[in-house]
């Protein structure tokens, strides 16, 4: 259940960000995340963990949004981009090459925070 520890890291980062903005005057509405498909994160678990973790805290009214970033690789033989599939051993469909370069899908990012100032 690493989403618990990820949530802790996420909340600490948001707090650090808020301290720089004058936390007492801020109401966070949305924390917008970008999560790659080739990570160990289950988005629903992260949302549920966050909602439970912030109950009664200054982030109680905030919500998480998650943009899923597709897992995309680049064939090292012909340079074509492709979507690696587990069923195909992540190999490129064009040249049947092993997955070498990952273009996207490893993202674990806080993209932006929507907030209001009192």
């Amino acid at each position: 259940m690493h989403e618990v520890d990820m949530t802790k890291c996420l909340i600490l980062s948001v707090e650090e960000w808020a301290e720089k903005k004058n936390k007492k005057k801020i109401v966070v509405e949305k924390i917008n995340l970008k999560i790659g498909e080739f990570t160990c994160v289950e988005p629903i678990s992260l949302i549920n963990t966050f909602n439970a973790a912030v109950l009664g805290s200054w982030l109680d009214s905030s919500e998480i949004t998650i943009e899923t970033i597709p897992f995309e690789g680049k064939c090292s033989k012909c340079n074509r981009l492709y979507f690696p599939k587990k069923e195909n051993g992540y190999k490129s469909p064009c040249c049947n090459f092993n997955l070498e370069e990952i273009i996207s899908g490893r993202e674990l990012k806080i993209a932006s925070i929507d907030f209001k100032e009192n």
Partner: protein
Amino acid sequence: MHLPISDKIELNILHQNSHQAEKNKVKFNNYNLLCLNIMSSPGAGKTRLLEITLEDLSKKFHSAVLEGDMTTNLDAARLEKLNIPVVPITTGRACHLDANMVSGGLKLLEKKINPDSLDILLVENVGNLVCPAEFEIGEHFKVALLSITEGEDKPLKYPIMFREADLILITKVDLLPHLNFDINELKSNIASTNHKADVIEISSVTKSGFDLWQDWISKKILKFKNI
């Protein structure tokens, strides 16, 4: 109340952990201490691997272990018999070590021994093929074990772990004659997710492959120390 503002920050969710991991790495570097993060599923043979490895390694290099375990100190107790500094880190409910836990372990190690006198720190992570893969601890290299009893498909099912590893040790290969297991299929699945990793077949029963593993460690230490 004003209209909502959107602040683009583009910060890694695990920034807090990564930041502490960087601090750990600076400490390891200052101590001239190579750190390996040893990971696998439960029962793949991490502790037995360390027992055998440290018997020989300790003759050439000054070694210490941070031993991650969820609820007990059983593994740490086994390694303490080798008369090397061992610090148990009991993670409680957490299924992986994080950079803060390793920082705490390093502080306890500093009370036992001056890390300046050490060459290598082996960190045995909690047995799990998912969570430890995303949490850096400040290690220089990641070593993943995969026992043949787990099946050929594990690199495809847990690709992050095997993608991130610098070295993959295929363990329990003495059992090959007794199992319907295709080691070439396993190696092909490893290459599918990680074409760069070194791969060594190893057995803690027959000790086959330990020469290659010890050689891998020795080279990494010597290169790290610029010897």
